[in-house]
């Protein structure tokens, strides 16, 4: 029992990056997201945001 592992909950996240100002925003993954997909306009410079990464992180 001392070697019993705790069950981890992995939460998927999507990281978007602006192609002009390199601003990064992280949000929860939504179905239909895929890496390098163009998303909304950047909130600071109105440049094109695209998905740079999708990954799972252990919820704390």
């Amino acid at each position, binding site marked *: 029992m001392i070697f019993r592992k705790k069950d981890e909950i*992995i939460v*998927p996240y999507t990281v978007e990056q602006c192609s002009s100002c390199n601003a990064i925003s992280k949000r929860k*993954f939504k*179905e*239909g*997201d*895929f*890496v*390098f*997909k163009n998303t909304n306009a950047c909130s600071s410079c109105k440049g094109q945001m695209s998905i740079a*990464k*999708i*990954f*799972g*992180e252990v919820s704390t």
Partner: protein
Amino acid sequence: MWLVWIVPIVLFMFYGQKIQLQITSSEINKSLEKLKTFKEDTRKELLDYIKSTIKPAADPSTKIDRYLEYFTIMPVDLDPNGIIQKIRHTMRSREDYTRLQVKTLSSEINSLESSKIENILEAVTTLHLLYKMVRHLFLTAKKQNNFPLILPLQMMMPFIMEEAEALKDAVSAFKQGQPIGDGIGPMIVGKMMLGTEKKTAAFETVWSEKEFEGRKLYLLKAEGPAATVGRPGDALERIISENKPDVIVMVDAALKLEGEDSGTVSQGFGAAIGGIGTDRYQIEEVATRHKIPIYAVVVKQSIKEAITLMKKEIADSAEKVTSQIHEIIKDNTKPGHSVLVIGVGNTLGVSQ
């Protein structure tokens, strides 16, 4: 008083193995029950997914259940001459048949959904096979009351359960179209391909050209965001027949050793590509024929991480791998040379 000690000694002398068999059997039985749950849950998940996404006209359960029982007979290896072509032919026949079967579920199914269902089906089939194999060995040992026969099974159970849990968790990533750990190679090369014209190199495989410090780069990966590994062997053969590169760089995920950190980047030589071996053979054969050196960059991860949602540590290694690829190119080529960079792995959730 001394009799208190004699009784258990005598008991264990005559019945020790039987007692141990009972204890081991109950442990294996628990794992077997868990395997059965995994197998049934993933089958149900697959059927629910098919019904909710592609809405087939008929109930798909009979077709899926029949598929779970399919087997593949590997070619005879008494005379290994030409066996690779035979294996490739057998495996491609199976893949083509699976693809066709999935397409017949609904006339409105697109290639992305089709590839996801094919991958989930593969995971469910493997779980089904694992359950049947473990059950066979367990029941044989019990039937014959054969303790030595159950020992190898007891030793293998933790590894089997690790794989089974990974397969069970993989279904969720496949359903949602999330990138898996194995997709790190296509993710790195896909980023290098952004803004270039993509051309078809082979079935479900794309390539493009790019300039890098006076060198010409030929970038190759499976066509995303579908759940496919493409056909890198065929694609490489086609590219080399038209433009011979001076160096080949392959990027892939590799199994880490226990104690190694996930996302560690390693560099080496030779064709970095997994699978049954037919693509690796094809790549090695073509590279040897044209005397092209192959360099490999791998990102370490566990079996579970390779087939489930990509972990942050693995995704974060992308920048490091890209700079290592650039270093390999600069160290081993001169301006005017050309390099073929291949991103190997399942490109689910990763476009280009």
